[in-house]
């Protein structure tokens, strides 16, 4: 049984691989130029909302270095 099952399991693996590749080959693709243009548009449209990119005024920054209080 062992010899037969070894061949059979590599057969199974090979069949699975072929089936998977057929599935992947059938995926619908768009041109890189179109995909890249959409990525670029997304970045630019959201850039102003990106605090790490544009920086945030110190007064809004909850992580700013704590200022010391002066007791009058």
């Amino acid at each position: 049984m062992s010899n037969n099952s070894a061949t059979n399991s590599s057969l199974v693996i090979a069949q699975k691989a072929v089936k998977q590749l057929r599935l992947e080959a059938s995926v619908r693709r768009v041109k890189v130029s179109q995909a890249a243009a959409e990525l670029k548009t997304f970045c630019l449209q959201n850039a102003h909302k990106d605090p790490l990119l544009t920086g945030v005024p110190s007064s809004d920054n909850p992580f700013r270095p704590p200022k010391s209080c002066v007791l009058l």
Partner: protein
Amino acid sequence: MSQDPLEGCRISAGKKSAVSLGKALHPPNLLVVVEGTCGACVAASPVSAPEGSCSYNVAHHHLCVCVRVCMAWQGLQKGETLASLKQESENLRRKLEEERGKLTDVELHQVAEKVETVAALSIKTRRVLKGHGNKVLSMDWCKDKRRLVSSSQDGKVIVWDAFTLNKEHGITLPCTWVMACAYAPSGCAVACGGLDNKCSVVPLSLDRNENVTAKKKSVAMHTNYVSGCSFTNSDMQLLTSSGDGTCALWDVESGQLLQSFHGHTADVLSLDLAPSETGNTFVSGGCDMKANVWDMRSGQNIQSFDNHQSDINCVKYYPSGDAFASASDDATCRFYDLRADREVAVYQKDSIIFGASSVDFSLSGRLLFAGYNDYTINVWDVLKGTRVSVLFGHENRVSRVRVSPDGTALCSASWDNTLRVSRT
């Protein structure tokens, strides 16, 4: 060929059972693969039967196996041999490359030529979170943008308030190397797992005196270490990745396995869920150097990318959900577009020779933060492919980087036992 070949067969549990098939359903090279999760252990154990007969041994396994006739029966045509299948495999792979190549009319950085360069960033460390006794392996932000959870090699999971540096909860796990942790969307629980081969969910109590560890509940069970975990859109489902080469979706309440994802041929090191509300795909990366995109409902691997030349340590979706990035031991980070179905950028430099362990995008997706084993964090311009900045400060490998949910801060976890929160 659409009939159920096991129609009319009786399968009984017990030491050994013979499945007898009707003559009409018994072509040569029939192979019955019995797979499924045993009630006692979680190993899916395919048992193949010799040609011509179908008997299988379910000794000491419980009855929850499902019999699935494998494709060998459904598809094995005349003359199909191992050699012919391997040849077809090669042909299909070549065809895939060709098809992808045909649509590569331009490179991403060319499309981004006219875009303004990123202004110099002034991101500085604003908080250092000390408290772990050993390497910090993972962290995750809470949706409230100020709390975070971190896990360490010392077996401890800590929930912090990043503004005040207050440690709100401490959970002790019975194992070392807690490699994965995640905050639940509601903020009321955390999930953690690692060398114990499990992923547990711990509800967080508002009562400081309550022993949170006691309420820990095991949800996921793998046959090897848990490398990553993430809640789906609700607290009710948990997705895990494991050193056993699989990913799995679990129901938190019952601990039931809802779906398992097979396809990686080595340890899976990372996973990330697609960001959209209705999203039901996720991406995983592993030691087989592949990044796979999965359909959560069917368990199907829908796209696969094998551009890296070493283990993929981390995968992360781009904010729009149409692309993702990966970090690898080959010292590069790569960017893949899902609709073009190919890699569209490689972030590398001759001077960077250490592996990248973790990546995350800024809110707009323009910046990619990548943590490396040389203790630094490189900030890349996603569109132009150039490095914008380097962040120093950690005194050992950076294991994880995560941008906060509102995009205002970056948290980095390191083998130097600390976490750092950085902002502009």
